[in-house]
């Protein structure tokens, strides 16, 4: 088995992310949306042909370093954590922050579970917060 070259990409110009790294990459289950982050920038890349992504058309600048983000399987929601405080950011439509949820302790990791209307968040205090979507107002809350 081998890994064969396909495509190389860059989130920015030669010095746009000095001392940075692409800390996280994530595709949704349709494999048509890709999001990447480096330092405080989150970028969204759209599939233009099988497994090939075009130039990022949308990006979001956070006030802090983005640590991790994960698409819900259908790509309609993106959950994001940064190195700031205790907030989880929920984004919709691949660029806009829809709302935030305070999980009280520093989030260390996150993952979608069950029917994709739940987000598990590993916390620094040793708990796992389960955030559930409330259909009536389409926002997530600590369960």
């Amino acid at each position, binding site marked *: 088995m*081998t*890994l064969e070259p396909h495509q190389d990409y860059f989130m920015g110009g030669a010095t*746009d992310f000095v001392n940075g790294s*692409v800390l996280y990459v994530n*595709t949704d289950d349709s494999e048509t949306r890709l999001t990447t982050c480096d330092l405080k920038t989150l970028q969204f890349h759209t599939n233009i042909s099988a497994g090939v992504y075009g130039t990022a058309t949308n990006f979001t600048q956070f006030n802090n370093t983005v640590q991790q983000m994960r698409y819900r399987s259908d790509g309609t929601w993106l959950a994001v954590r940064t190195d700031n405080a205790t907030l989880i950011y929920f984004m919709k439509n691949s660029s806009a922050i829809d709302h935030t949820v305070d999980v009280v302790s520093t989030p260390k990791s996150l993952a*979608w*579970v*069950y029917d994709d209307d739940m987000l598990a968040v590993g916390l620094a*205090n040793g708990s796992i*917060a389960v955030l559930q979507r409330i259909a009536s107002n389409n926002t997530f809350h600590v369960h």
Partner: protein
Amino acid sequence: MINTTHIGGVSKVFGTKNRIYSAGGNDSVVQARWLNTTTGVWSLNSSVSGVGTSSDTVSAMYVSGNQKRWGVGRSNGDIYILGHPDNSYSWSIANTITGAHTASVNFIRFSSNGWHMISGAAGNDSVRLRTKLNNWNTSTDYPWKGQSGDWDDRNKQVTIGLYGNDNGAFTTKFLKANCSAGTNTSDISQCQCPAGQAWFNGGCGLLLCNSTNFTNINVTKGYAD
């Protein structure tokens, strides 16, 4: 809110259809919890100790799409691969790859069928590809500084975020089988196999019906993370 016994916080979580996998920030224990969809209560389903040592910490974790493999990377470069029998989710350590990397493991990704593992690490170490066929014993190494990764099963490719660049570089690579008798026309990660053989675990072989732990060759498309 789910309380755990992890020490040093819950450093890693991974979600599937009805399970939450977790690893502690300062322990060598990994746990799996199961959701009772009737009561809405999460219960501890499996707790495995010895997944690391007291002198290292978890640095990466991933579960294959079919939930046959659970990979845990450690700060010393070791990778633990857990498996379970086909008839239960009783997880245990199937393989310990000591020195899988020369530095802290940044990411682990399995192909959805759990047959291939791609991992990257700090310290300018290589991105490494391993296969279940030889029990993960050898790796094919690539000179890429892998910070992050994600598996794209539709296109049989891995996306790798890189470190050591000032321009936010990332790359995609196809997983390709090296075949003597031709590649599967619909899946370049598989070869055409001789009559009587089938492609599983990353190679052609005879299909056997022996029940052995961690072999679980039956493949289903799992619930992706």
